[in-house]
């Protein structure tokens, strides 16, 4: 079993739910990456998703787009991020999986084989590519699997039962259940049918199911953890770091640890 799945399962077995914060690498300068990762590790994150800035982030809303622009203005690249991770990987606990979230083109430009090699050297154990649907993922998946790295696939509200099943079968690490039709960014609330969707996904998935997109308050964290193995929180974390509000981050993480048993 891949480290990503292992860490999530062990968290759930202890009666908590997984909490995976997303940060934009290089927002605030690449020097801040280490500080953020170590802060999140100490604050109780289950895994950490590290976003690579891209010129054309079509799956992202304002908050992450702007964080990406700040990072690009700092000259941050995929290569620089992987080098930075490598420089402090000894400080990251072995049971703390690091995930890379990158659009496909920077990976292609890096070269697939070299990229996978660098992921290993940087201690990365999972990869999320928002513009790589199941249909196009075959070769990358094989290469990652050979190297013990998870390829986390996304399931959306528009994926029908058949696709959900096919994606669940192929996803390694966990399934990323997109909770809204739309791009990343804070939301007021969620569609009523979401609970049913998450339950049905959970019932067929051989790997853990984590919900993400729009989750921005402790109440959201609790609400969406009920039917899943945990949550991914992006824009709210990016915002909190940008405002220096780390207490907010701790609150969000706390919400994944409380009331879970009561809810079941």
């Amino acid at each position, binding site marked *: 079993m891949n480290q990503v799945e292992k860490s999530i399962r062990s968290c759930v077995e202890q009666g908590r739910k997984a909490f995976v914060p997303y940060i934009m690498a290089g927002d605030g300068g690449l020097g801040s990456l280490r500080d953020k990762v170590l802060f999140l590790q100490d604050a109780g994150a289950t895994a950490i998703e590290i976003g690579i800035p891209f010129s*054309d982030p079509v*799956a992202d809303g304002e908050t992450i787009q702007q964080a990406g622009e700040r990072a690009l203005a700092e000259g941050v690249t995929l290569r620089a991020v992987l080098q930075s991770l490598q420089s402090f990987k000894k400080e990251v606990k072995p049971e703390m999986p690091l995930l890379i979230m990158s659009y496909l083109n920077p990976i292609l*430009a890096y070269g697939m084989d070299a990229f996978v090699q660098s992921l290993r050297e940087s201690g990365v154990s999972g990869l999320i590519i928002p513009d790589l*649907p199941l249909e196009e993922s*075959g070769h*990358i998946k094989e290469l990652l699997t050979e190297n013990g790295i998870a390829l986390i696939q996304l399931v959306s509200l528009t994926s029908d039962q058949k696709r959900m099943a096919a994606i669940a079968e192929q996803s390694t690490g966990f399934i990323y259940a997109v909770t809204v039709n739309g791009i990343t960014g804070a939301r007021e609330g969620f569609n009523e049918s979401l609970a049913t969707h998450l339950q049905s996904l959970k019932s067929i998935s051989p790997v853990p199911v984590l919900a993400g997109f729009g989750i921005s308050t402790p109440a959201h964290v609790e609400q969406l953890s009920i039917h899943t193995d945990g949550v991914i929180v992006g824009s709210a974390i990016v915002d909190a770091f940008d405002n220096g509000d780390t207490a907010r981050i701790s609150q969000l993480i706390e919400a994944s640890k409380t009331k879970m048993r009561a809810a079941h």
Partner: protein
Amino acid sequence: MEQMSGSVKQKGRYGKFGGQYVPETLMSALIELEAAYDDASQDPTFTEELDYYLRDFVGRETPLYFAERLTKKIGGAKIYLKREDLNHTGAHKINNSIGQALLAMRMGKRKIVAETGAGQHGVATATACALFGLDCIIFMGKEDVRRQELNVFRMELLGAKVVPVEKGSGTLKDAVNEALRYWVAHVEDTHYILGSALGPHPFPRIVRDFQRVIGVETRRQILEKEGRLPDAVVACIGGGSNAIGMFHPFVKDEKVALYGVEAAGSGIGTGLHAAAIAGGKEGVLHGAYMYILQDEDGFIQEAHSISAGLDYPAVGPEHCHLYDIGRAVYTSVTDEGALAGLRLLSETEGIIPALESAHAIQYVAELAKGMRPDEVVVVCLSGRGDKDVQTVRDALGGGTR
């Protein structure tokens, strides 16, 4: 691309180019679109309806016009113009917009989103939406809003909502990004009318098929007029829709040389251009594997061209393939060249071409000169120049001399 081929069946490939690189949320819409299009293209009532609107609303077929004075002036091959500028709304874009609007209605979708660069696709889509009573929202880069002010007003008169995109370079690429984001959020009741032979499968095929009418008519017309096929066919390349529509019916005729003309902006050497085949590398943008202007880290670069409609950093997947297999030749013309082409056609034939089409005109002038008088070349005059008059006037410093 070898690295991309896997066990799951990949769709919509032109050699290694194309594919479906989109967020999962859009996959079901693409699958639905593909099924609806397969069904529609087999259905004679759909084709008849499309033909009806192309004839009685758009004004097809468009003439294949022998440019006699231009031919004389150049002193080489006979030059024919395929007059897509005479279509309703002034460019080839309407062929695709009408087709896709009919397709959207067939899928029960009455809301439309589109991007536009020059504003021609936006105007064409706003027109189709007005014609059929569909809701229409158009994303347009802020730089293009400035360059194509009159087209913005035209879209608004037609009842469309035009949203300026401030991000990035404020041109076509950024407008596509925003249109895609909007589509992801409204995918359940909205169809995205993509304006060029780009994007994820099945768009490149659908757009090509709706633009094929250009080449199909040209083929018949040249056979009538010359009793034979042309020696060369020329078209400008933004994303590549007028060109692929023109080329496709000739691809199997090996003797017909195909020339695609990219925008060289200030010159390929300056880095300020929009010539993705001449200056780009393979990669993925907006759902497809193509040649793209990008830096070594895989970040997409901004395209530069005096013509808003060519100002896009990639070229549609089918052209990438035609280039790879050597079936078509891709060349480029600078901003300056395009301005010269525009004046040449205006003065010799009384036709002010769109700046996009002027790239093709300028190249044809060079090409025809090196050919014999008994040879024949056809150029796709993809649109008329009214929309560009202000830009041209600024570029020429206020006057014509």
